[in-house]
């Protein structure tokens, strides 16, 4: 787009407020008379609740009320999707608690301190039950049941793809059991909600300020759950301090907060503490993957057999369904794979419910593919890069429908890999690796490669935007997405500046308020630019059309002859002196009693499929197992780029989280279900000191599915980096015979692998999957959850 602002690096318009402390997050809002809520949470993973004694707590100074489930009488909580209706969750536990952190009662007090003190005075009599913590063991026939009526801990199961032996005809079959570990979402702002009940004078009976990705989703779910007309609920997301999939609409605690506020008729707020966040906010990932890849001697892939155990946590958290949805639909990845057989079984466990974390099921697919391809390359003695090149789908293949039924829009996988290798200096890196090995250096070099494709803006694929020309000649954009760090105020203003010639500082941006924006899907699944961005384009174009008609009337010309001048005014072609400002045209519209404004709902025919290739370079101390990430090269293709500054930011953040999972992060429970990583000191989230500055590049392969040619970028960095880094660590130790290390590749695990390799006692990379898969092929009813899971956009 020559001469256009689109495609250029524009600094963010939202920064100044955030940089000066003026920006309000939920806990910063002044709400007079607000009560503070604190939850009484279960210290045990699985127990029957005998009694809840709230008398002492109620008598404490500053305490206004204490509620257990029966005091509020709230309907069951429903999250983003229901994986299994038999695993119903009450917003406050009734008969049983099912994970450490399960809420049993709630305190409303005049101060936060009073609420916390009172929570400790609530005495709950727990009758402890044996817990099921490990998802594979939870599926064993003798495991303690979380829902007795269900008769099993298997919340869902499915079979998809081929019914035949997909490995038949292979010369070699490589097999691996991989853990894609449970991790914490950890937005720096934890959950937060403030509820103001009662008439706001504007037709609302309930006003909710909430830290969320999906304000309309919260309003709709509250309306559905509480039976309130949705137009009486106003939901506002002020500034949101990160979400990453962890704030996808209504949380169980939100429902309680609304219940308490309505019960007391007073405003309340719940600001989650960090320790609470680590047990209460749904976790992400949590898959055990049994992967078998059949190949010819030359590396050509013959077939892929997958059996996956998904951990849904307590109450069948919707994250458990991600194995059935995104992981399945992305199971073919970037390769020609003639046949895939896919089975998954999802377990409820006595752990924090599972939800989404950046990538939500797609990183899990990319990770298993990139790991097994590396194992095959190792087995066949083919360079991992060559192994990939021999099997890539080619640009001429698109649009391409995979054997699991997913239709990819566009791609050039080899180009991205070539670019990453060129930038990394792959051959020189391999040469240095050989030298270090020959010298027997203490710090050995590992080089990891990954190639991935992922899916963005799946599901319903529609979004709202409106553009209004204000009386001062500026414009107001309203969108149904809800940015929380992605820079939408900037990118959408760029679009209006481009289409209408209105300067960016004249563009106002409205989002995240259900009373200002009629509908919206929020921000998740890397959907925002491609859906809302194109909706802004649509609305701006409609506005322009109307403006040309108005200008034509004013100038007594034909609308077809009205053009936009270089300085953003409307004039008769060839007569620059006739130019009218937007202010003038807007005034004419106002005189005609029809404000200059347009709405547009952009609907996209199908999802888009960003892709890319990453190269990670690590150094491994073979004496201690310490790993240092030296370089990380990312080539991410998100279609046509609107603002490279914002794209790089998303790449950085995504990579940081993928690297963190590969090397450090894991949410750990002991055998009894006690969390061992429930604060920032125990949980290995990286700081700047652990990460290098990443080398982020892009190729640009536009999607044909929207006018901007844009695909999503929010999650690519995570999806590409995690397998590249894991592969790099294993590659660095391959000369010792190490073939696999599960994530996180912590010093302890790496050191153990080195020790075992030297002693010739490396554990096998494969073992037979649990018997649960003997019956996944004849499971009825699981298809519903799978289809719903396909549509998840987090």
């Amino acid at each position: 787009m020559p001469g256009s602002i689109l495609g250029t690096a524009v600094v963010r318009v939202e920064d100044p407020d955030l940089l000066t402390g003026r920006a309000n997050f939920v806990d910063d809002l002044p709400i007079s008379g607000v009560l503070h809520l604190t939850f009484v949470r279960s210290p045990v993973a699985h127990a029957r609740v005998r009694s809840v004694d709230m008398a002492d707590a109620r008598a404490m100074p500053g305490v206004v009320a204490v509620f257990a489930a029966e005091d509020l009488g709230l309907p069951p909580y429903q999250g983003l999707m229901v994986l299994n209706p038999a695993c119903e969750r009450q917003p406050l536990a009734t008969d049983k608690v099912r994970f450490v952190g399960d809420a049993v009662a709630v305190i409303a007090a005049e101060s936060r301190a009073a609420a916390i003190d009172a929570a400790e005075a609530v005495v709950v009599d727990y009758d402890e039950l044996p817990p099921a913590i490990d998802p594979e063991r939870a599926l064993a026939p003798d495991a303690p049941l979380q829902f007795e009526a269900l008769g099993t801990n298997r919340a869902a199961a499915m079979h998809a793809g081929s019914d035949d032996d997909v490995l038949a005809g292979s010369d070699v079959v490589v097999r691996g059991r991989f853990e894609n570990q449970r991790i914490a979402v950890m937005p720096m702002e934890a959950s937060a909600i403030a509820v103001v009940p009662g008439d706001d004078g504007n037709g609302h009976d309930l006003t909710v300020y909430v830290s969320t990705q999906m304000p309309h989703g919260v309003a709709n779910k509250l309306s559905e759950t509480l039976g309130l007309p949705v137009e009486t609920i106003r939901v506002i997301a002020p500034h949101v301090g990160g979400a990453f999939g962890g704030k996808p609409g209504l949380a169980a605690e939100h429902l309680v907060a609304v219940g308490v506020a309505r019960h007391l008729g007073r405003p309340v707020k719940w600001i989650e503490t960090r320790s609470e966040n680590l047990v209460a906010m749904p976790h992400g990932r949590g898959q055990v993957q049994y992967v078998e890849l059949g190949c010819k001697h030359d590396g050509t892939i013959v077939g892929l057999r997958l059996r996956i155990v998904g951990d849904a946590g307590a109450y069948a958290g919707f994250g458990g369904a991600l194995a059935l949805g995104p992981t399945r639909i992305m199971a073919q990845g970037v390769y020609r794979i003639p046949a895939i057989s896919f089975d998954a079984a999802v377990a409820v466990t006595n752990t924090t419910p599972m939800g989404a974390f950046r990538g939500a099921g797609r990183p899990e697919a990319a990770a298993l593919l990139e790991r097994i391809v590396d194992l095959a390359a190792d087995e066949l003695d083919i360079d991992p890069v060559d192994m990939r090149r021999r099997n890539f789908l080619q640009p001429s293949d698109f649009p391409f429908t995979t054997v699991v039924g997913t239709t990819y829009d566009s791609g050039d996988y080899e180009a991205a890999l070539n670019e990453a290798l060129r930038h990394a200096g792959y051959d020189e890196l391999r040469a240095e690796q050989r030298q270090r090995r020959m010298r027997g250096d203490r710090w050995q070099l590992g080089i990891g490669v990954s190639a991935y494709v992922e899916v963005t803006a799946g599901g319903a694929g529609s979004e709202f935007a409106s553009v209004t020309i204000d009386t001062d000649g500026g414009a107001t954009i309203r969108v149904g997405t809800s940015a929380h760090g992605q820079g939408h105020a900037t990118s959408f203003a760029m679009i209006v500046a481009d289409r209408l010639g209105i300067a960016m500082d004249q563009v106002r941006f409205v989002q995240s308020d259900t009373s200002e924006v009629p509908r919206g899907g929020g921000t998740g699944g890397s959907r925002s630019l491609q859906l809302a961005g194109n909706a802004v384009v649509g609305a701006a174009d409609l506005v322009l059309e109307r403006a040309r008609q108005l200008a034509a009337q004013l100038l007594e010309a034909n609308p077809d002859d009205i053009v936009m001048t270089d300085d953003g005014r409307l004039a008769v072609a060839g007569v620059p002196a006739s130019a009218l400002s937007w202010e003038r045209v807007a005034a004419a519209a106002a005189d005609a009693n029809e404000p200059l404004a347009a709405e547009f709902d952009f609907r996209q025919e199908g999802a888009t499929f960003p892709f890319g290739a990453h190269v990670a370079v690590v150094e491994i101390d073979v004496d201690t197992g310490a790993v240092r990430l030296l370089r990380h090269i990312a080539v991410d293709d998100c279609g046509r780029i609107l603002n490279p500054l914002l794209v790089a930011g998303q790449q950085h953040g995504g990579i940081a989280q993928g690297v963190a999972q590969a090397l450090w992060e894991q949410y750990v429970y002991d055998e009894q279900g006690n969390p061992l990583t429930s604060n920032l000191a125990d949980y290995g989230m990286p700081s700047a000191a652990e990460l290098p500055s990443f080398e982020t590049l892009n190729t640009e392969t536009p999607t044909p599915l929207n006018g901007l040619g844009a695909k999503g970028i929010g999650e690519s960095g995570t999806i590409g980096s995690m397998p590249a880094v894991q592969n790099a660590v294993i590659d660095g130790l391959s000369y010792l015979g190490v073939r696999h290390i599960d994530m996180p590749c912590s010093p302890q695990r790496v050191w153990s692998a080195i020790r075992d390799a030297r002693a010739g006692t490396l554990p096998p990379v494969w073992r037979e999957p649990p018997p649960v898969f003997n019956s996944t092929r004849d499971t009825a009813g699981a298809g519903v959850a799978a289809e719903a899971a396909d549509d998840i956009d987090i």
Partner: protein
Amino acid sequence: MTELAAKGRRSPEVASTLHVNGRAHRLHLDSRVTLLDALREHLDLTGTKKGCDQGACGACTVLVDGKRVLSCLTLAAQCDDREVTTIEGLASHGVLHPVQEAFIRHDGLQCGFCTPGQIMSAVALLHEGRAGSDDDVREFMSGNLCRCGAYPNIVAAIRAVAARGSG
């Protein structure tokens, strides 16, 4: 009723004078109130963020007598008669501090929740003379976590200010 509950766990109130961003505030607070809560809940200075309240994230970083401290681990009473600078006090007369400017230019923030802490920490680090290399910046900013992963650009922003010598 337990003995603890009966007492309501009140601690004695203490009087202290906090000089925050150049203004003196006389406060009478429970002796357990942290500087962070004093700022946020008693002085309406909500720019300083609470990311953990456990001294592990750096979101609450402010300057006390020019040195960076975690305000969640500092009692308000300890700051009697000391100069506290928060994010609200950094820009003067509407002109952003060079570190704030650099964060815009280098895109050193995304959601912005960790940002006040990052900036206060960066300002102090520049005074400490610890911004001599990218690695130094990374090491001496390691107490300020950013889940959005804006680290590369935060480092670039700080280095740019250091290079111009205008911390």
